């Protein structure tokens, strides 16, 4: 009890240097965890947000572009595929589900994605969870200019059932490119925490037959999302050979997780830079703990000598000094978790609103254990020299009368 009391009072007596050290440890800890978790969790979140689809079939072009366009409503489409291409892959025996999509228009930057009724036909985006319209709404009629708006888009645009709108031509918002056709919102998609939340879903023909679109492309589509039957993963190899190696007209983006992994690996240099920065901040934090504990120990040399004179053995002084540095580490880690919660929330919100991917900052990651352990260990190591000085303290010198 006395040890804890002395540690607490010691920290309080040098509150400014203690606070600076705690803040630096928190910063180091927050950065270390953020760099590790956000990177790992972002990749996993993107993979989760593939909504259970294994592949994307589209026009000849970049696989990454197909995945980003087809699954995440990002980027442009590399081109169109025909209705026959769609039917061919849809009818393959090892294909479980398909979802054709058509992109090309927007409403004030929110993409319109054309699809068919398969979206509402018990299509699951994660195990046990299917796309469905919120109560009070309904799926669009494929032959009408109707829309089911994603939950995030509805919130962003302030739309509800009954809202009507004129779409704008192109994927980027151009106020001078508004279509004359009017669409009506007939339902809001229940939140899925996938990119489906941030688009406006309309019937395929609704997009294809808007004014200004090429009549020759009225039966074409931008891509088809494909899910293989369970246990039919060899199908991916077969179709990869058929479309990517033997064919020259289409591209099968498969496997999605690997393509997303390639995307993240492009940012490895940035991650390495962030890691180096995090390590540097951690080292600076350790130095600040050393400085705080060393100056605290020097200023309290007399106190330590008094403790010795009262019967405290040398090990007690070591424990008191190391306890102070460990306490700074623990307090810094607690604050660091708070900092990480803020960073995680900001990143989560950015990814959710801009890409529709839900990041889970508190999903299990070993860094959540080794990060704080590392910072506390660094703090204790930083306290080793002051502790050794306390151990070697001469009581008689420490108690010599003050000048």
């Amino acid at each position: 009890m006395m040890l804890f009391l002395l540690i607490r009072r010691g920290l309080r007596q040098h509150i400014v240097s203690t606070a600076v050290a705690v803040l630096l440890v928190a910063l180091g800890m927050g950065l270390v965890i953020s760099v590790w978790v956000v990177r790992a969790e972002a990749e996993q979140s993107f993979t989760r947000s593939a909504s259970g689809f294994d592949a994307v079939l589209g026009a000849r072009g970049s696989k990454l572009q197909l995945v980003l366009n087809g699954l995440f409503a990002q980027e442009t489409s590399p081109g169109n595929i025909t209705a026959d291409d769609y039917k061919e892959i849809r009818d393959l025996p090892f294909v479980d589900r398909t979802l054709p999509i058509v992109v090309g228009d927007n409403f004030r930057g929110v993409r319109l994605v054309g699809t068919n009724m398969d979206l509402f036909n018990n299509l699951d985006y994660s195990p046990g969870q299917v796309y469905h319209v919120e109560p009070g709404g309904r799926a669009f009629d494929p032959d009408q200019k109707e829309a089911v708006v994603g939950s995030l888009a509805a919130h962003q645009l302030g739309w509800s059932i009954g809202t009507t709108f004129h779409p704008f031509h192109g994927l980027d918002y151009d106020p001078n490119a508004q279509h004359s056709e009017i669409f009506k919102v007939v339902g809001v998609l229940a939140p899925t925490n996938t990119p489906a939340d941030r688009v406006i879903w309309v019937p395929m023909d609704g997009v294809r037959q808007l004014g200004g679109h090429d009549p020759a492309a009225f039966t074409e589509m931008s891509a088809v999302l494909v899910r293989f039957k369970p246990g039919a993963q060899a199908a991916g190899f077969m179709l990869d050979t058929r479309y990517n190696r033997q064919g020259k007209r289409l591209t099968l983006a498969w496997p999605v997780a690997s393509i997303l992994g390639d995307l993240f690996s492009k940012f490895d240099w940035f991650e390495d830079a962030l890691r180096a920065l995090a390590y540097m901040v951690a080292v600076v934090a350790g130095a600040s703990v050393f400085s705080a504990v060393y100056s605290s120990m020097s200023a309290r040399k007399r106190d330590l000598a008094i403790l010795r004179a009262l019967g405290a053995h040398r090990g007690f002084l070591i424990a008191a000094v190391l306890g102070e540095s460990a306490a700074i580490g623990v307090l810094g880690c607690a604050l660091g978790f708070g900092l990480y919660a803020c960073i995680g929330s900001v990143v989560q919100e950015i990814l959710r609103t801009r890409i529709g991917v839900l990041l889970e900052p508190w999903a299990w990651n070993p860094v959540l254990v080794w990060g704080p352990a590392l910072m506390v260990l660094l703090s204790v190591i930083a306290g080793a020299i002051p502790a050794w000085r306390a151990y070697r303290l001469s009581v008689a010198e420490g108690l010599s009368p003050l000048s």
Partner: protein
Amino acid sequence: MDPIPALIIRDLVKTYPAPSGARTEVLRIPALGLQGGRQAALRGESGLGKTTLMHIIAGILEPDSGLVSVGGTELTGLSESRRDRFRAERLGYVFQTFNLLQGLTALENVSLGLAFGRGARAGVAMAALDRVGLADRAHYLPRQLSTGQQQRVAVARALANRPCLILADEPTGNLDTVRGGKVIDLLRSSAAELGAALLVASHDPEVLGAFEQVIDLAELNQVQAREEES
């Protein structure tokens, strides 16, 4: 009278390293004793080695040779950690500069005196504060107390573990005459009440006059006697 002597010193020698590398003798005391429950003053001007002797008796410093026995325990035969433990359990020490921990309250400072020995107990610490008349200042920090009150807290800390020997090194050095007299009275009465022996080191005639037995360090320490002869 207590059959066990509170303090026995025999053939004590203490040296310090000189800048030249040789060792300089500062204490050479053939014999010194104090019976249990007795009170004595140790007279000596500054620089004669009073504090060094008190530190040796308390087990803070080790002599080069000789025997120091306190309350029947030979300190010179104990390891440093055993001496620490002995000091915490059996000795009370009052310093000239009070030596209270500024971050702790009066009660916590007194508890500190118990913590390394038989264990801190708030009731015992409070009783010690009550004995010196500071129970109502238990939760004050040292800076919120007068110098006299601070020294009384230091006395309470020295008494709390019910020591067999109380050492006070210039306990009135930082106090005026009136407050100094009160502290000496408090020390003497408390030691008598506890049955503890008391050894007060001082060069103040007022303090020395309060004791029947006064030990003159200048006579006792043969190093000093040799220097005076030469």
